[in-house]
């Protein structure tokens, strides 16, 4: 009826329009005036859910089974009631972790597991291929219907193999707008804009057909229903069947609820392409409203078509044949474009989403493992994605060719739904149950997938005759319990319901069961906490446990390979700004490593990103105990208090040390005060006499001569005493400060002793004290300052005289050789020195004698000076009891070494 050339022109023109819209969308995105930054566009893009299955299939199903097409749209409506409790959470957590696909979401949640990502991708691809095939088939079928109806212009070769052309155009579109660039955000505004536009076309064309049916063909919808109810076969469609139909209904509702979240294309438009979280709010009712609107006319159209169209027409083409039969080819063309829109948007978005998953979750990990991913990565990634799109579309095309006309559109769609529904328990548990483990999810999803393949995929392929009929009819190994359509003897259910029941049962049981018995790794536990407890992404920088070493330069270089140098630098600079730091000083810590991982995750998925970042950031494994320790803040507090305790102990020790030092200082200070006080006393005493007698002499000029002489003599004597004192004090000071010039030479102790005895001869004679000298001839020499040694001997002798009794005194001076030195002794027969005072006597200003007698003469410094001198010579000075009862002052000096004398 419609010229094939006209049809092709219309279809091409429409596709051209989509290209233009997509191009504008991409351009606007670049200039920042986003075409899709609106909640209405967002809701319309979600309507990618309504594929040709909806457009053609729903009517087909309504025509055969009544209202049971509806659960597929009621399920999403119900899920959208959970927008704030569930969808928003997926959105938020995905944005926080830069999730790029459903596979990425699950992989990231379960410890950035490459296995999870790969498994999910494989299932998604296998599950989606029939669905894509369904779209291609729908388009080609609709083209054929338009062309062939009533004989038309049959025979055109171009239209015979339309699937391949449709596939090519859609793949081209997906490649052009889906793989233009590798970006951390993975958004494709052009595609979203086109999809939203297509959603409008879908709705408008379908509603047009509906209104046409109700208003033009019939006298209102009531008329349709009335006339349908008149026909018993049609009136049957008004009803919902018995328990089995009820179970199917519930199963489909569940499948649709799972699909709206798990379908790769739904995840793509709802999560990945989301510009602003708040768009979800309005979409929560706009999308259900859209579903309601597009479904409102399904049933009336189906009934109208059944009443109008000749029996035997393919129910899935009724939307087209109804206007055609009525002669409204223009409307039929519009309906065709609506169906084309539905199919095109699904194929494009699905292939883009799948290509991201195939690239990030299958190919890149494989390349990483083989070490083939090197420099110049971006073109490689884009190439992988383009190839993935082509392959997926080709798979769909192949499926169409191989599996012909066996199942209706809806049935194929439901099989796909059942495949992706295997992810649903993993997502729900992943987001709400922290204990859900990687092992549990791998087991559950694998089991579910195997059961799905066995009960749903196998029969759909097997019916083509490639598989032994025995397998399908009698089960594997001939076990009837393993019949694909009646597993474990569960017979009589709709195949989809049957497959969904068993796969979901095993899936959920395995996830829960395995999770309860297998422990999580540290990384898994960390990710679980981020997804379940911190789904706002509030702690995404701080919360991630990371320990290791990394260089920011390495990270930048790594990320740069994938995102480009400039963009990467910009991202890191932004991070530095956020932290208020100089970008040059940005440290390679958990935050920057996470940033690198997040940026990479946007391009290649979280699991691959983790492997890559780990290659430059040498992460140290964090043990489970350590994770618990870090997580547990109380243990940190305990650690602090322990450290504090240690510090306070150290402080106490230091304080005690300081106190001791202070006491020593105070003691020294007191000693210094004592010394100053003593010196003062020693100086003031002679001064007092000098002053007093000087004043007496001055005040008494008429003093008799005898007294005057006596007083003057006292003044002179005290002056001399003062002089001696000052000299001695200077001596002490000089020796102590080391400023004395020592003239060390080989000295004969005997000679010095004899000299001193001679010099003091007069003193002994004055006091009538006997001096005996015992100096053997063979006395060794010593190394000393001769004058100083002389001073010592004189001091000792004069001391002895001082303490010896007048007239009866007897002093003995002896020098003897000892083993390695020379000893000089001066013994007297004076009062002696009590043992307690024997050490003190060598201290400054200590004069020990009979306290009741008058003070002896002398400064009190003589012995102190003597000891200092002797000690300088390397000898010793000490006092002991004399056999005669007095004191013996001893000096020992080391013998001069032979070697030293030779030199």
């Amino acid at each position, binding site marked *: 009826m419609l010229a094939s050339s006209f049809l092709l022109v219309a279809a091409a023109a429409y596709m051209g329009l989509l290209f233009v819209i997509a191009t504008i969308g991409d351009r606007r995105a670049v200039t920042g005036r986003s075409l899709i930054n609106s909640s209405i566009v967002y809701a319309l893009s979600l309507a990618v859910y309504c594929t040709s299955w909806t457009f053609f299939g729903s009517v087909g199903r309504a025509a055969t089974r009544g209202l049971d097409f509806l659960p597929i749209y009621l399920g999403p409506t119900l899920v959208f009631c959970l927008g704030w409790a569930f969808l928003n959470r997926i959105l938020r957590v995905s944005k926080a972790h830069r999730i790029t696909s459903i596979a990425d979401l699950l992989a990231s949640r379960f410890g950035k597991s490459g296995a999870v990502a790969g498994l999910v991708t494989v299932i998604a691809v296998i599950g989606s291929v029939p669905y894509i095939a369904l779209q291609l088939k729908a388009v080609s079928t609709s083209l054929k219907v338009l062309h062939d109806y009533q004989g038309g212009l049959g025979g055109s070769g171009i239209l015979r193999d339309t699937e391949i052309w449709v596939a090519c155009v859609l793949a081209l579109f997906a490649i052009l707008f889906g793989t233009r660039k590798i970006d951390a955000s993975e958004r494709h505004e052009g595609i979203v804009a086109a999809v939203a536009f297509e959603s409008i076309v879908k709705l408008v064309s379908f509603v047009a057909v509906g209104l046409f049916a109700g208003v033009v063909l019939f006298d209102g919808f009531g008329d349709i229903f009335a006339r349908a109810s008149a026909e018993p076969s049609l009136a049957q469609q008004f009803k919902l069947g018995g328990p089995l139909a009820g179970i199917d209904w519930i199963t489909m509702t569940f499948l649709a609820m799972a699909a709206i979240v798990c379908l790769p294309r739904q995840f793509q438009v709802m999560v990945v392409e989301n510009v602003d979280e708040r768009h979800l709010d309005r979409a929560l009712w706009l999308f259900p409203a859209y579903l309601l609107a597009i479904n409102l006319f399904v049933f009336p159209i189906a009934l109208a078509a059944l009443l109008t169209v000749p029996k035997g027409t393919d129910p899935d083409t009724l939307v087209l044949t109804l206007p055609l039969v009525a002669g409204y080819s223009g409307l039929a063309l519009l309906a065709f474009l609506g169906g084309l829109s539905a199919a095109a948007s699904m194929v494009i978005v699905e292939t883009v989403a799948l290509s991201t998953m195939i690239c990030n979750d299958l190919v890149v990990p494989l390349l990483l493992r083989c070490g083939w991913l090197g420099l110049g990565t971006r073109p490689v990634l884009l190439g992988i994605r383009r190839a993935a799109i082509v392959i997926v579309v080709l798979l769909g095309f192949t499926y169409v060719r191989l599996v012909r006309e066996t199942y209706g559109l809806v049935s194929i769609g439901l099989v796909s739904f059942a495949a992706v529904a295997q992810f649903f328990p993993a997502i729900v548990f992943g987001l709400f149950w922290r204990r859900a483990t990687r092992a549990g999810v791998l087991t559950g999803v694998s089991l579910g997938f195997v059961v799905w393949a066995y009960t749903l995929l196998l029969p759909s392929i097997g019916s083509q005759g490639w598989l032994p009929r025995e397998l399908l009819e009698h089960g594997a190994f001939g076990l009837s319990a393993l019949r694909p359509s009646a597993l474990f003897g569960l017979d009589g259910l709709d195949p989809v319901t049957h497959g969904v029941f068993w796969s979901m049962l095993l899936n959920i049981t395995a996830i829960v069961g395995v999770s309860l018995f297998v422990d999580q790794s540290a990384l898994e536990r960390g990710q679980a906490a981020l997804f379940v407890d911190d789904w706002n992404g509030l702690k995404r920088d701080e919360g991630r446990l990371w320990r290791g070493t990394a260089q920011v330069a390495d990270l930048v270089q790594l990320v740069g390979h994938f995102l480009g140098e400039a963009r990467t630098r910009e991202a890191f600079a932004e991070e530095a700004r956020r932290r208020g730091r100089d970008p040059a000083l940005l440290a390679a810590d958990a935050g920057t490593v996470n940033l690198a991982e997040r940026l990479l995750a946007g391009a290649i998925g979280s699991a691959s990103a983790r492997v890559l970042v780990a290659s430059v950031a040498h992460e140290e494994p964090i043990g489970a105990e350590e994770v618990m320790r870090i997580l547990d803040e109380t243990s940190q507090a305990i650690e602090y208090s322990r450290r504090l305790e240690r510090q306070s102990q150290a402080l106490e020790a230091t304080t005690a040390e300081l106190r001791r030092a202070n006491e020593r200082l105070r003691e020294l200070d007191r000693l210094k005060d004592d010394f100053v*006080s003593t010196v*003062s*006393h*020693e100086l*003031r*005493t002679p*001064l*007092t*006499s*000098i*002053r*007093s*007698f000087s*004043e*007496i002499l001055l*005040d*008494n000029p008429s003093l008799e001569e005898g007294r005057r002489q006596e007083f003057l003599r*006292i003044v002179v*004597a*005290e002056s001399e005493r003062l002089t001696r004192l000052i000299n001695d004090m200077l001596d002490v000071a000089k020796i102590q400060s080391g400023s004395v010039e020592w003239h060390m030479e080989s000295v004969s102790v005997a000679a010095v002793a004899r000299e001193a005895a001679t010099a003091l001869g007069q003193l002994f004679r004055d006091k009538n004290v006997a001096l005996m000298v015992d100096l053997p001839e063979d006395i060794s020499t010593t190394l000393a300052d001769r004058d100083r040694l002389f001073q010592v001997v004189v001091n000792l002798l004069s001391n002895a005289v001082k303490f010896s009794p007048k007239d009866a005194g007897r002093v003995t001076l002896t020098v003897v050789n000892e083993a390695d030195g020379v000893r000089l002794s001066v013994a007297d027969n004076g009062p002696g020195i009590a043992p307690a005072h024997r050490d003190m006597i060598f201290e400054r200003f200590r004069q020990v004698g009979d*306290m*009741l007698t*008058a*003070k002896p003469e002398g400064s009190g410094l003589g012995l102190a000076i003597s000891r200092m001198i002797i000690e300088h010579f390397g000898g010793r000075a000490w006092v002991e009891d004399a056999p005669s009862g007095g004191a013996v002052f001893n000096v020992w000096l080391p013998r001069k070494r032979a070697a030293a004398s030779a030199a």
Partner: protein
Amino acid sequence: MGASILVADDEPNIVLSLEFLLRQAGFRVRTVSNGEAALAAIAEEPPDLVLLDVMIPGRDGYAVCQEIRANPDWHNVRVVMLTARGGEIQREKGLSLGADDYVTKPFSTRELVERVRRILGAARN
């Protein structure tokens, strides 16, 4: 009849000068050279005033002063401490022990005699 003064010091030349000065000023003077002798002399005949060196051998000047003040019979004995150690602490200590005055060596002879006279005069009035 001049007041009686006991001089207690272990420096013979200082004792000699004090004895001369005080005699010349009209006092009766006795001298001792250590703490025990000083107390014995006071017990024998309490003087009007004791010139007491802090650093005398035996019981030092502080102890002797304390002893004097502890004995009610010697209530009227004035005490003037002599010291060759300077410093406020020694002065405070002497005065707190009941000394009437505290003189640092070397002293002005005239001033010392003046002080002795003043203390004895004040005591008499």
